[in-house]
């Protein structure tokens, strides 16, 4: 499979702070690649290096198999990006902002193309409105529009759903999937929300303090980890006695006043539930949580 992004030993130091530390990552053609990490993990610094906004202290970046440092302009012609929160010339309209950015990129800035891209992100009715009147969510959509304007092969999105309402988030997710599946684009999606990446990505990496914590296909990472499932019930003592004599005993992690925490595989939840109900134990709720998610939340909390 062809590598679209190849990062080796990437390091960025700001005086005493090492923001990115010997990071390696590979993104392949057609990937929706989730780039995860808590706030301050080094995600934006990495993206800024990928987009040549900041210079790496050491390490190499290749995009489309070409060294970024030497072939910057050639590479960036085929890359669209949102880097952190998208900001525009507030005193100009959405249309004019796109026209200017398109002209700098040397791409098609015809009325048809700009309106088409504004329609894609749902801003066609606000084309002539000044950007300073836009909400954060609208700027986010316009950010996506400028990233797609020149029809890039690689799209780098840094927290693209920040500030969007649930409907907007769903639309962006659908658009990302559409771009990857229908238009064969490669997507590099940075986020600090595991669930968001899990819904769209096929491969992902989790970084913390500038280094890789875990990397692989989303499916492998999710399958590799058992679920922590909390069964909430009223008759805890009776349930303890019943479970003590069964195969489920060794799956118990801990007991609470009204909960039992099990470590289960996904396909074990329903049989356990059935067993308890058949024993006359009423289940109030079942809350599954993957250990990967726990791990990520742990990282996030530490990061915060």
């Amino acid at each position, binding site marked *: 499979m062809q590598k679209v992004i190849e990062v080796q030993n990437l390091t960025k130091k700001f005086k005493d702070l090492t923001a990115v530390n010997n990071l390696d990552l590979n993104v392949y053609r057609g990937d929706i690649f989730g780039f995860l990490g808590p706030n301050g993990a080094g995600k934006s610094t990495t993206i800024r290096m990928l987009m040549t906004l*900041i*210079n790496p202290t050491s390490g190499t970046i290749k995009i489309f198999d070409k060294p970024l440092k030497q072939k910057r*302009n050639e590479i960036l012609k085929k890359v669209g990006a949102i880097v952190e929160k*998208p*900001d*525009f*010339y507030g005193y100009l309209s959405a249309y004019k902002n796109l026209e*200017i*950015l398109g002209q*700098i990129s040397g791409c098609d800035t015809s009325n048809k193309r700009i309106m088409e891209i504004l329609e894609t992100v749902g801003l066609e009715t606000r084309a002539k409105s000044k950007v300073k009147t836009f909400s954060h969510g609208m700027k986010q959509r316009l950010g996506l529009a400028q990233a797609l304007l020149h029809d890039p092969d690689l799209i780098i999105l840094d927290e693209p759903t920040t500030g969007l309402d649930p409907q907007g988030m769903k639309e962006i997710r659908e658009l990302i999937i559409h771009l990857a599946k229908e238009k064969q684009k490669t997507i590099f999606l940075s986020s600090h929300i595991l669930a968001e990446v899990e819904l769209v990505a096929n491969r992902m990496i989790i970084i913390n303090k500038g280094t890789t914590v875990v990397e692989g296909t989303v499916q492998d990472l999710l399958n590799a980890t058992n679920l922590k499932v909390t069964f909430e019930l009223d008759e805890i003592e009776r349930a303890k006695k019943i479970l003590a004599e069964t195969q489920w005993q060794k799956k118990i992690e801990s007991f609470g006043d009204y909960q039992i925490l099990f470590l289960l595989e996904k396909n074990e939840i329903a049989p356990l539930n059935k067993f308890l109900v058949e024993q006359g134990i009423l289940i109030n709720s079942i809350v599954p949580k993957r250990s990967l998610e726990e791990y990520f939340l742990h990282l996030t909390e530490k990061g915060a």
Partner: protein
Amino acid sequence: MYTLVKIELYKIFRKWRTYIGFAAIGVMVPIIQIAMYFEGAHYLEFMTRSFKDSFVFVGNLLNGYLIAYIILGSLTIHIPFLIALVAGDLLAGEATAGTYRMLITRPVSRMKLVFAKFIAGLIYTNLLVLFLAVISLGLGLIIFGVGELIVIKDAIIIFAQNDILWRFIFAYASAALSMSVVLALGFLFSSLVENAIGPIVSTMTVIIIFTIFSAINIDFFRTVKPYLFTNYMSTWRLVFDDPIDYNEIIKNCLILAGHIIGFFGITLFIFKRKDILS
């Protein structure tokens, strides 16, 4: 490059701060002209009081040329403020607005972007000086008419009516070169920070300090004076000498041009290596 410059000019002229300079000149110059229309005779009498006993002045001495000369003399001190307003914003304004990220991730080299911004800034600067020329000389000639130009320096010099216009053209060109140095300095400061206020204030601070140093006639300041670019910003006045010291004018213009290239070169060096963190 043409497209980039066009875009930068569009951005400059879509900002209200750009028009502060034009508005200031558009208001100040007519006010000075109106005041001179009513009080000009007294001003001229004051100017020539020490020569009154030796010379008899005849003809229309309070004419458009004299008014334009006076205005040029006083405004070249203040126009740098107006230039700095735009120069300081050229790069730092992008950082403040967060638009660096959009701009620098385009497939255009930083060198080209900086160069386009600088060219656009130079065009603004020259347009401002041209506006000053049109409004002070053009309007002055309409209101006050033509005549001979009386210039008082170490001696009294009177230029014939047909010997003045070309001097003004060179004077405005020289003033534009001086103002371009201010632009280049403001542009340099603008590349160092991420807020436009700092470069505007810094540019003016440097000009004020250098102008004060240039004006104080004591040995220490006389020694450093040749190294201060503000010392060469009044080169336009040399065009109104008789005879004209062309060598001095060329030397001064080369020094000013050298400053422009130097400041721009440093800006380019800094900006090419700058980490965009805004």
